[in-house]
């Protein structure tokens, strides 16, 4: 029994060690994308430090300066940064 516990704890430990970086890289690319979009749209932000995905192409971005925007693709196919 203890053998299985040890084995599974090792598996979980290794999984979190090696699985987390790829997830983190994905998050970084989203933050970078949102930062670029907000800058392109010319609204104050600086840098996006966190984001919450609502659905595809729809995120709530929190900026370094405290501003929060909903960045999404509207029905007309335009990317919009809506201040929250």
């Amino acid at each position, binding site marked *: 029994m*203890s*053998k299985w516990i*040890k*084995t599974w704890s*090792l*598996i979980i430990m*290794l*999984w979190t060690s*090696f699985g987390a*970086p*790829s997830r983190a*890289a994905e998050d970084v*690319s*989203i933050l*970078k*994308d*949102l930062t*670029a*979009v907000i800058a*392109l*749209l010319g609204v104050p932000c600086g840098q996006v430090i966190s984001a919450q995905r609502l659905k595809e*192409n729809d995120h709530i971005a929190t900026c370094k300066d405290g501003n929060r925007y909903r*960045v999404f*693709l509207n029905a007309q*196919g*335009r*990317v919009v940064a809506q201040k929250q």
Partner: protein
Amino acid sequence: MSGAEESLMSAVRIGGLLFVLLTAGCAGLEPARGSEAPIAATREAPVALDPVAPAAASPSTSRIASKPASPAAKPPAKAPAPAAPVREVARKESPAPAPAKPAGPPPLDLKTLETRLKETKAIGVLTKLAIKNQVDDLLDQFRAFYQGRLKTTLGELRPPYDRLVLKVVALLQDADPPLAGAIVASREAIWGILADPAKFENL
């Protein structure tokens, strides 16, 4: 006691095996991380903002540097007849500007540029869509101008065009320097299309 040691050893063996397998699996992530390599390379050798000008300038510069150098080196040996080499140089100088023409603006391939912009991993999907929106807005302005609906001049449409190109280049220059360079090199050619109503109509 020996049973506990045995189970511990087997756990260690399984752990070791998993470590090796996961490390091998992570090797598959290398292409994704490969995007960091151009960033480092870019920082060492930043994108030239106007690669067209140096390309056009370099042949003439080398010509100027090399040709006067040879007569300067020759006079000690051929001192009695200095006039002949001068004429020779003058004759060689006159046909020289002809090959400089093809080295000017590179051929513009809007379709390829568009495809490369769509496919680049340097910028995210939302950024690409935002750029597309801004390109469409600018094209609408040109369309309105040519249809007489917008009271402005071509000169006034140039700054927004330059700003848009600058924004796109700024977004690309770190992660996709070749594409950024291609866009910079095509800037004048694209403007040539926008500024010509006939070419714009066929766009």
